């Protein structure tokens, strides 16, 4: 039997060397591809995050009442977690703070759910439009005013600083109007009660409030026979109340308000742009002057919009 011949392994070494070189080439190519892909992904992610943050802000702003922005107290911050459509991989949060002047400070953050640290923050400043100053008293009439002995006045004290009520009269009437009121009820006379802007009845005001949320616009003489109302009621004619009526917000009548046969409790303000020879008659009325309630129903009615020129900013 012949012994085994020793084998030389140079072919194996050569093959391994070539394989190693081939591997290096492939690794180099892969590294380049991965680096390019990563850079492209980062750019795409950044754009996606920007878009998600902007969309989250737009979503909250477009549906301000549903998110309760109109009811936010002054200085209060509320945060919302949103699912942005078509972007389930992202986590989006919007914080809203209500500031003085009806301004909303909004900050949106979007980040990948897998990596909370890698996000974008965007700031938007919006504002509730205003259509004039808040009512100067619980009752404002252009024409005559007759208040019964059962009329009781109060002032809402749980208020925000930007709508807090100071010492105000119970009612204000235009110069020349006659007033009959129980003793102790302070009724002032002021020129402001002669101005249609005080009653939010200028053409621009009415146009702003038309079709707005929480606003009822009655086009002629109107009678309410009991019930509850919250919001803004604009009556183009006279307003007659019967039964037990609870009002919260702002009631504006172009004509007189007659509540001779009604028991009325109101929180907010009642405004009557009645002619000078027609009387607004309130006999059994409990009214709480609440300018902040009026401001809130105004915010419900007038959706916020971004402020001009410098509303948007990127945060880091």
């Amino acid at each position, binding site marked *: 039997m012949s012994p085994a011949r020793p084998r030389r392994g140079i072919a194996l070494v050569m093959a391994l060397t070539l394989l190693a070189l081939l591997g290096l080439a492939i690794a180099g190519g892969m590294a*380049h591809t991965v680096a390019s892909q990563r*850079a492209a992904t980062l*750019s795409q992610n950044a754009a996606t995050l920007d878009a998600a943050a902007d969309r989250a802000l737009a979503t909250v702003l477009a549906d301000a009442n549903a998110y309760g922005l109109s009811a936010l107290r002054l*200085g209060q911050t509320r945060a919302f977690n949103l699912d942005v459509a078509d972007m389930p991989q992202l986590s989006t949060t919007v914080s809203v703070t209500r500031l003085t002047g009806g301004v909303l400070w909004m*900050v949106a*953050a979007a980040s990948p759910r897998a990596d909370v640290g890698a996000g974008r923050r965007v700031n938007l400043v919006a504002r509730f439009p205003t259509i004039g100053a808040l009512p100067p008293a619980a009752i404002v009439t252009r024409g005559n005013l007759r208040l019964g002995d059962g009329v009781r006045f109060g002032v809402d004290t749980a208020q925000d600083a930007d709508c807090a009520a100071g010492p105000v009269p119970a009612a204000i009437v235009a110069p020349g109007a006659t007033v009959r009121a129980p003793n102790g009820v302070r009724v002032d006379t002021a020129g402001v009660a002669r101005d249609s802007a005080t009653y939010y009845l200028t053409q621009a005001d009415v146009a702003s409030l038309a079709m707005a949320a929480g606003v009822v616009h009655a086009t002629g003489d109107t009678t309410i026979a009991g019930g509850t109302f919250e919001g803004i009621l604009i009556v183009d004619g006279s307003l007659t109340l019967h039964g037990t009526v609870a009002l919260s917000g702002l009631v504006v009548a172009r004509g007189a308000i007659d509540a001779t046969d009604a028991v009325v409790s109101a929180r907010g303000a009642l405004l009557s742009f009645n002619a000078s020879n027609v009387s607004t008659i309130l006999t059994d009325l409990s009214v709480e002057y609440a300018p902040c309630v009026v401001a809130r129903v105004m915010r419900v009615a007038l959706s916020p919009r971004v402020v001009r020129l*410098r*509303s*948007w900013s990127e945060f880091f």
Partner: protein
Amino acid sequence: MLTPRSRPGFTLAELLIALAAAAVLLAVIASIALRQQRLFAELADDAATTGRLREAIAMLPIDLRAVSPASGDIREARDTSLEIRATIASAIVCDTGGHTLTLGPALSGTDTFAAFLATVAAGDTAWVLDTRDAAEGWIPRRVTSVSSTTAARCANGGPVLSGPFTAIVVALDTLLPGRAGTVVRVTRPVRYSLYRSSDGSWQLGARDWNTTSLRLNTIQPVAGPFLPPSAGGLVFSYFDSNGAAVTNPVDPRAGLALVRVSARAQANRAARVLGAASTERRADSLDVAVFLHNRR
């Protein structure tokens, strides 16, 4: 009796043939290794070129997006340079006192009341949102000094905060009708342009605002090198809200809605492997369109 077994050997011819074959093989391997090295170098060069472009393209939009053309934030707009007022800080005024505004705290989450891209300094411009009437506006005031303080809470009208925080106090040159809860944006001019550096290369440079001399500083490189302007190294183009190009020189107050930034850079070496033995250097380009959020 056993005889010793003869051991196998190599003839001279076998050795010469083996040596020749090994030499050829080594030469082939060396050639492949050299080519590999070049390939790696070119790939790295390519990646660096792309990186330079991305660097420039990533940085410019940050300053551009918050620009408000109608407020005069675009001070000069040309195809090779752009001078703007960049927003460097945003905050809610927490409190006021004479000529000073105490800004809200900068926090990391969405419940933040300030954000600073750069440190606010004297000479910057503070734009204070004026909400005294329905048509709000931004009132510009020059910052005269900046300090910090510890505050416990904001005044009425500002955000409701719990606990003490460090606040930036900004003094302004003129008294403002500002109050707690007012929003303020701080801007600072900056100029971007392509310039030729001392080594002859074309760089994207930035001239920051000198808050002491109230002039633009000497240009500093930001990213590069890029191709020269004649080869489209860095080109700014401007468009209105209808997508129509606004031609140079651009009226800074024109209704600009979009700025496109195009950058072109070239690899440092000729691509001998990737470019199929070309003697030309590979060039890469990147475009970004920046939508101006505050155009109205």
